[in-house]
């Protein structure tokens, strides 16, 4: 069972990070008109590295701060044109990032699908 999981794990992690990023970018787009809102994003590569490597310091209590925790790596967007109301969402940027992210999500999904169908045909012995 572990081998199967390892076979699918990489693309599954990628899919998970893409989904998290989608929600963040969706939040940014939703708040495009809210004064004072700071746009946030994650770096896909850093997230994937963290997923593969696992936490560097073990946390044994729920009160422990996790330096590698997902919320510690959510970055703030540096706006190209800062606006007067303190909002750092730039719709053009967010929409491009969002569309890129959805395409990459679909790509990961296709890879994952191919792996599953490959496994299925191997199991069936076709």
């Amino acid at each position, binding site marked *: 069972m572990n081998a199967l999981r390892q076979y699918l794990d990489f693309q599954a992690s990628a899919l998970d990070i893409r989904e998290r990023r989608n929600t*963040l970018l*969706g939040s940014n*787009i*939703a708040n495009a008109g809210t004064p004072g*809102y700071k746009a946030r994003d994650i770096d896909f590569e850093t997230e994937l590295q963290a997923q593969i490597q696992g936490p560097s310091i073990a946390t044994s209590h729920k009160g422990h701060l996790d330096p590698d925790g997902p919320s510690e790596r959510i970055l703030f967007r540096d706006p190209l044109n800062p606006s007067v109301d303190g909002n750092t969402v730039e719709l053009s940027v967010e929409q491009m990032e969002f569309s890129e992210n*959805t395409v990459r999500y679909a790509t990961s999904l296709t890879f994952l699908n191919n792996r599953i*169908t490959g496994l*299925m045909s191997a199991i069936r012995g076709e």
Partner: protein
Amino acid sequence: MAEIKNIFDVAGRSMGAQMVRLNTIASNLANAQTKTGSADTAYRPLRTVFETVYETGFNSYSSNGHATVDVSEIIELEREPIKLYEPNNPQADADGYVYGAPVDVDEEMVEMMEASRQYQNNLEVVTTLRALMMRTVNMGK
């Protein structure tokens, strides 16, 4: 205050907020030509005040990045009504003046364009992610 669970809550509540904004704009435009007999009762344009709602934490530093929008309040703009001399108007005061709503139609149209664009953006996000989710549900078939 309902919690934010997923992107549907984020986009849905944001669309709701934009809808409230569109409704206030419609009220402003509908009242653009109304006149009253005193400055106090004259219509004042309404504006929505947006506020970010975070899933966790109370500001962007302590949140997990998931955030949607709520209308925190609807304010009346503090503008002087337009004073017009219309002695034949039945609503005119003792000096023959009526007070028109200080609604700038161009300004309202710009507000309306912006609100409807924001609404469309959120709808686009939901449509895209829903399609991806449907494909994910059918994974391995």
